């Protein structure tokens, strides 16, 4: 049962990701990206990490991608034109991609042998342990990231302000 769901959602994630690349209209690409995020959230859910799954949907699918689509629609971006692909990309692209993927796969298999892989439902996805980790063990990095985000917000406001 779990294996079937895994293949459905993993397949959907890969399918949406490929669709993201081959679509020519930015809105369709953005929609595919939402599909990728939602499929990943389902995979997190099956691992037992419910909190992460919910946050994935709320933050990425619900907030970040809405802003993407908002900007695409506001600028009224049209379809992209296909260009003549370069000779190098046409001939070396597919083999290079294969080499890269097999390298990544080999490293992953070497690093994590079969018996140390995660199983479905491995993570006790409770919210409280995550909060405890964030605010006790990783308090400094957490706060540093918050300050970083704050700097970004202030920077955006300064850049967006009209010249006096």
């Amino acid at each position, binding site marked *: 049962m779990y294996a079937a769901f895994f293949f459905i959602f993993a397949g959907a994630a890969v399918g949406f990701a490929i669709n993201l690349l081959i679509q020519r209209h930015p809105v369709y690409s953005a929609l595919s990206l939402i599909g990728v995020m939602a499929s990943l959230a389902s995979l997190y859910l099956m691992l037992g990490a419910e909190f992460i799954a*919910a946050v994935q949907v709320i933050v990425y699918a*619900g907030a970040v991608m*809405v802003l993407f689509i908002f900007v695409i629609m506001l600028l009224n971006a049209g379809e992209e034109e296909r260009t003549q692909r370069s000779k190098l990309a046409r001939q070396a692209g597919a083999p290079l991609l294969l080499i890269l993927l097999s390298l990544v796969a080999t490293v992953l298999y070497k690093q994590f042998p079969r018996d140390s892989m995660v199983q479905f439902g491995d993570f006790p*996805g409770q919210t409280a342990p995550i909060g405890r980790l964030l605010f006790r063990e990783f308090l400094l990095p957490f706060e540093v990231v918050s300050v970083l985000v704050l700097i970004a917000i202030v920077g955006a406001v300064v850049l967006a302000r009209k010249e006096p």
Partner: protein
Amino acid sequence: MPLPFIVITLIKAIVVLIVLMTVAAYLVWFERKIVARIQNRWGPTRVGPFGLLQPLADAIKLLTKEDFTPAGVFRVPYLLAPALSLTVALLAFAVIPFGPGFQIADLNIGLLFILAISSMGVYGIVLAGWASNSKYSLLGGLRSSAQMISYELAISLSVVGVLLLGGSLSLREIVSAQSGVWGLVPRWNVFPQLVGFFCFFIAAIAETNRLPFDLPEAETELVAGYHTEYSSMKFAMFFIAEYTNMVTASCMATILFFGGWHGPVPSFLPAPLQAVVPLFWFSLKVVLFLFVYVWIRGTLPRFRYDQLMSFGWKFLVPLALINLVVTSFVIALRA
């Protein structure tokens, strides 16, 4: 997964779906009747006694109307948008507890699930606005995405106070934490979280695109906003989704702030009747909130767009933040 579990869950889901569709249909009748009374007229009276069969007549009209797709729309998103709106609106009811044991699924992140689902709701509207390829629809869609992003923040911040009091993200446990009394008043979250409730309810009205925040479909300036180019059942799907969202928001207000299925007075009914008492209190509270929705619609004029934005960002979000800080401070002092 065992088969009986799947069958029982399916039956629950079907019952909830049927009840919900009926409620959404009669909510339209309810709204038309009350707004009519507020405006000193009768409302629907012709179909059935008190116009009670009006929803049926509306449904037949919408079903038999010509399903028209304008030229120049982006076909796939145009067809996807109404389905997405309705699906997302219905999904929220998977985790809402109507009474002890009356719940399709008790997720331990129930509240986050609802927030996640409602944050996906904006796509239906935005896609409809863009895919229709018409300027009024596009403006409606743009407005709604800006509005929903802004007010989602206020909603999320205003429910954190409840989370701090209840100590759980599961909706069933949030309701259970509100049983019992403080002296004469019931232990409902609305009393310690009055400010939180205020923020939540205003933001919920904005989130469901109802008056006075119905800018996405403001008919005086945008014809009908994001669903201008839709007709027949596709329009009906947006319509049902909007009313379903109203019911969801009322259910959430009941669960988070008004004690869910707990009544304000203990009941002395005999045992077999006792089982329906929680359902009665829950439905009564939801209907009261729906009435407030309609009442507000009948009373207040629409906001201007810049008023809406500055109200959300300069008043509601800071107020919810202050509420959050004060609540956590009090809880930290007590602990």
